[in-house]
């Protein structure tokens, strides 16, 4: 049991609403909304957390109260009319059935949205200043706009109550309309809504007073706000303290949900959603400072990934509730596991940011390591036992192989897991060697602990041969042998280029000047560039893309760019590597500008490339002929969630997953494994 666990497992009562413990999930936008409504997928995602013991789960990050704050951008929820109420009722019944409480976030995003996504209404804001992140120039709000939006908030609050939700919060964080009024970086009005802080607070006060009037004094209404905008012309910590105490004192809010920073541009966004390069709970001091000034509960989220930190935050009195939003995406059952004394079984969030990065490019939130999250209708978080115990051989203990072994062992099968190297984890072991990406090692650490606990016969330092596999008399063979780095098509690359993997593994230790050519736009090249620059190399990173690390998501890419700038790495976009040849004991790289076709040369000590991986499939091909299914997965059966239709009395079935099929990513490998093995 972790220290101070009892502090987390104490109930909290707010206005007669008792939340069973101090662990919550903040409102966010997982991209699961459909037609502006929280439908089955969205509801099951939160119900799973309630089933897993969470005290309070808040959904609908940035749920809109008015059409000029459209719900479309993150497939979000519109609370702008009554048609959402039946969905709220169904939703709250689902969560209440498991003893959890459910709240929503209501907002008007003001300038922080787009005008061209749904209703083609102009965005609005206290003053017409463009926000870099949303890229829109808003209309300056007239008094009529203010009155209209205030009424929209009030109507939305009533809908929440009628829908059976336990409460709601308004968002005044990340640069939404209320904090656009607060922040001098946006609000340049000269009327009663601008100027002094007292005037800038007025709009929010009118909103909350109207919501109270509409939803009743006994309805729980809170506010999400920043404790310090951390920008030169923004709200200082002192301003935020003043706002928090004023709103609390007026009885407008029942809780304060405090975070650090805002999100008006790329790096601010990355800081407000801290990734694994940050320490845990980096902004805990902000809610802590506010808690000392107010007598209502204070909530906080921001990279609290482990229960020990969460328990400390509550036990030491910094906050009343800890939000572990991403931690629940990794493991929705973490509170249950804590209270059942199974804290070691918690799949801990590593802070990869895969979930959030997907939604900012229009995708749905998925967990890099838990393929069941957001797929509750089809993928189980708790694996059911199979009727028949099979002998399963898995080859390769990377993330895919480990997940396959784990799921098969949970199904009750006898599992042998071969791993050629001395360490499980596959390519994650390499990724974790690169500077701030070290926390990636948490993914295989959990998987190895689980397979060990489940009695999987994990054979490290053992290369699987055809004979060794067949000697196990398997019913099922799963090839998860991963990929091998590819040196690319440039002339001379095969002889003269080294790969990022070789640098990370230590096989090659470049010195002097390095040209790093990246065709993937992923973490790999940027990480290696940072690593080499820190080791004293003079590094230029060239890429085919329009910018460096183009495929890396919005909470991670700014961190890479920040590091690369700080380290003096030269960034050269729109370049293609066409040839490498030696000159003396150095190398010449020929680069061609993808826009102009103009060619340039670099003379460097080492050329490092990242072209992704090609499958390691020799063993698969050796085993394929004798297998009952010729190595083919019946995709239709798998997509229908049905068992693979092969007769195992006649021999073994052979499957291939992860990068051994085609180089993709960790989530793909783990999802391959889960959806195949849950029905084996």
């Amino acid at each position, binding site marked *: *049991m972790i220290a101070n666990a009892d502090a987390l497992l104490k109930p909290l009562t707010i206005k007669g609403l008792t939340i069973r413990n101090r662990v919550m999930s903040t409102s966010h936008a997982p991209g699961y909304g459909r037609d502006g409504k929280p439908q089955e997928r969205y509801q099951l995602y939160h119900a799973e957390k309630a089933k897993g013991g969470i005290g309070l789960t808040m959904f609908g990050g940035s749920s809109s109260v008015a059409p000029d704050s459209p719900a479309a951008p993150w497939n979000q929820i519109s609370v702008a009319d009554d048609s959402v109420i039946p969905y709220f009722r169904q939703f709250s019944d689902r969560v209440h059935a498991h003893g959890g409480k459910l709240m929503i976030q209501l907002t008007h995003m003001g300038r922080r949205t787009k005008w061209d996504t749904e209703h083609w209404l102009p965005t609005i804001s206290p003053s017409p200043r463009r926000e870099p992140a949303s890229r829109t120039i808003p209309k300056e709000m007239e008094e009529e706009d203010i009155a209209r939006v205030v009424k929209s908030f009030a109507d939305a609050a009533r809908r929440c109550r009628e829908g059976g939700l336990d409460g709601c919060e308004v968002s005044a964080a990340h640069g939404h309309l209320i904090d656009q009024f607060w922040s001098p970086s946006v609000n340049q009005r000269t009327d009663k809504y601008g100027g002094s802080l007292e005037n800038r607070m007025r709009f929010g006060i009118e909103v909350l007073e109207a919501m109270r009037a509409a939803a009743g004094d006994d309805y729980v209404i809170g506010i999400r706000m920043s404790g310090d905008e951390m920008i030169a012309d923004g709200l200082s910590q002192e301003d935020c303290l003043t706002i928090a105490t004023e709103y609390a004192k007026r009885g407008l809010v029942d809780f304060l949900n405090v975070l650090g920073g805002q999100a008006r541009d790329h790096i601010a966004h990355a800081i407000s959603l801290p990734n694994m390069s940050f320490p845990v709970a980096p902004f805990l001091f902000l809610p802590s400072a506010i808690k000392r000034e107010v007598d209502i509960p204070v909530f906080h989220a921001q990279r609290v990934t482990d229960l020990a930190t969460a328990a400390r935050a509550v036990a030491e009195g910094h906050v009343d509730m800890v939000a572990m939003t991403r931690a629940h995406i990794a493991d929705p059952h973490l509170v249950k596991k804590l209270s059942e004394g199974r804290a070691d079984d918690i799949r801990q969030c590593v802070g990869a940011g895969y979930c959030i990065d997907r939604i900012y490019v229009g995708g749905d939130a998925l967990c890099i390591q838990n393929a069941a999250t957001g797929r509750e209708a089809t993928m189980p978080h708790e694996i059911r036992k199979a009727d028949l115990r099979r002998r399963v051989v898995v080859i390769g203990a990377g993330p895919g192989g480990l997940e396959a072994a784990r799921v098969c062992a949970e199904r009750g099968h006898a599992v042998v897991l071969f791993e050629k190297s001395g360490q499980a984890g596959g390519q994650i072991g390499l990724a974790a060697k690169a500077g701030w990406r070290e926390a990636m090692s948490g993914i295989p650490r959990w998987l190895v602990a689980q397979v060990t606990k489940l009695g999987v016969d994990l054979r490290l330092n053992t290369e699987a041969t055809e004979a060794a596999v067949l000697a196990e008399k398997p019913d099922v063979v799963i090839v998860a042998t991963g990929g091998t780095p590819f040196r690319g098509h440039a002339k001379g690359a095969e002889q003269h280029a080294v790969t990022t993997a070789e640098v990370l593994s230590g096989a090659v230790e470049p010195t002097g000047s390095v040209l790093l050519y990246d065709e993937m736009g992923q973490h790999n090249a940027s990480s290696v560039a940072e690593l080499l620059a820190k080791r004293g190399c003079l590094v230029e990173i060239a890429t085919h893309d329009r910018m460096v690390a183009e495929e890396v998501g919005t909470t991670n890419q700014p961190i890479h760019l920040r590091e690369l700038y700080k380290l003096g790495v030269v960034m050269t976009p729109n370049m293609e590597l066409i040839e490498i040849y030696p000159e003396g004991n150095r190398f010449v790289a020929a680069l061609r500008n993808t826009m102009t076709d103009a060619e340039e040369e670099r003379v460097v000590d080492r050329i490092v490339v990242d072209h992704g991986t090609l499958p390691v499939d020799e063993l698969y091909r050796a085993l394929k002929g004798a297998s009952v299914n010729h190595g083919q997965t019946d995709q239709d059966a798998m997509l229908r969630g049905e068992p693979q239709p092969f007769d195992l009395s006649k021999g073994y079935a052979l499957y291939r997953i992860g990068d051994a099929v085609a180089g993709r990513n960790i989530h793909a490998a783990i999802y391959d494994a889960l959806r195949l093995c849950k029905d084996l």
Partner: protein
Amino acid sequence: MHSFMPLTTVFPGLVWAMAALALVQTARRAALWRVGSAAPVAWLHGLARLPRRYLVDVHHVVARDPYASRMHAVVAGGLLAASLLTALAILPPLAQSRAYWLLVALAFAVTAVGSVLVGARRYPAKQKRLSAGRFQILPFLLLAYAVGGTLTALLLAVGTGGIALPFTLALAAAGGLGLAFEVRQGPMRHAVAGALHLAAHPRPGRFEGRPDTALQPLDLEAPRLGAEMPADFTWNRLLSYDACVSCGRCEIACPAFAAGQPLNPKRLIQDLVAGLNPAEPPYAGNPYPGGREAEGERGPLARLIGPDARIHPDTLWSCTTCRACVEECPMMIEHVDAVVSLRRYQTLERGALPEKAIGPVTELRQSGDAGGRPLPARTDFAAGLDLPLMADRGQADVLLWLGEGAYDLRYGRTLRALVRLLRQANVDFAVLGPEERDTGDLARRLGDEATFQALARENVATLAKYRFARIVTADPHALHALRNEYPAFGGPYTVVHHTAFLLELIRAGRLTPGRLPDLSVTYHDPCYLARYNGETEAPRAVLDAIGLARVEMARSGKRAMCCGGGGGAPVSDIPGERRIPDLRMAQAAETGAGVVAVACPSCTAMLEGVTDRKAEVRDIAELLLQAVEAGR
């Protein structure tokens, strides 16, 4: 004929002389008992029941060691029969009957066989649990009396006494008078004191088939609280300690002794005996672990407890009040009562609680919870389960008493399982919630009777506000206090342990568990359920009902070994060489069971605190819930 007439008188005369000597010795000893305070004793009833108490209750204990049982039957039966028959031979018709003397000879011969059985336990090597000292000469005294008696009776039977008779008679006299002499402070004291103790036993309920285990309330207005010196005990308690036969069965059963903590119940009783009598021969059994030997002062007014007294305070605080010694004692001695009396003085008169126990007891006194946790936090474990409160409902069929375990994270799991089961079975129940206070069990066992009584009165007053048919609790310590000790404070309740209640629900078809055949389980009996309340069957029946492969530990039921969690021992935390729960889990591991089923929050905490344990520790409610869910 003429010549042996006087001898036929001398021989019975010897026995009469023995009786007289024994009487004198007993009277001298009884003078010491009289320093004790008065005690109400139903003498007539006690004496009338004496044979039954001896033959049924004592025999039930003695028979657990079949050799000792046979030995005692032969030697004691023979001794009593031979002596009685010989004594009757002062009647001339009997004295002149050769057949009668043959019968006497036979009785002595049986005694002789018994004497050999007695000797065989001590020679060539003494059994480890037995005391040496004067007990080592007992077989020789018995043998001398028996052989001398046999030969004398045979010679009288055949009528050719001659010159041999004086020698055989002398042999019998040496043994017989020796035995009688030993009635005061030797091995034979147990016979007389034991018989009187059975008649004047301070807990007569033990012999009437009910568990007479409640501690007696202390009059807090009395001039002295608890026992500091021998004279502070009642006279029949002093008598009871003299009944000790130093057999050492208690030390084998004692968990603290096994763990190498400085407690040996036999030595403790013998120290009470020696404390009473400055002339007592030296103790000759196993010492307190740790090897401390202190003579201290002796005498009825001598201080018994102290760092330099006969009994070190650590000895007192090592006791878990598990009653294993009491359960094993063939002389029906109440060791735990003695410990609590001594603790009461230490706590109430001297404020000399062990350092680590001061905090919890102070918290109990001040806030009603040993951990000083707010009373409303007792229901934190059930947040989200919407526990019905008596304060809201006023009445319910079942009042669920949550106990101290409710504050414990681990045990919260058990209580949640229990609540779910009650819901599943549609039981109409409610809890006191913030109105529930600690039963005071911890305070009472640690001698703080004042705090216990205050808590008992508060709880009784709270319970009086509501209507309920029964109290159900998962905590045997709470159960014992509520069921057996609260009646003295005006609270007669029907109290049911959760395992018995769950069994009722299963039998009534209100819970329909599936079977959990994959698990093998061994059940650890809580002391306060099994020994204090005699309930050993219901928990086992629940486990059987869910189809578990149940295996028993070598020590189980009323003879189970304590987990170390009772009597305030965990808060006193007296160091030993080993930990009691480690020993118990090792015993559980010997069964090979994958699950140790428990039915008490203290046992759960103690056993789950064992590092590197091979088995899971799960409350019966948790196992049953799993089975009920499997059965859906």
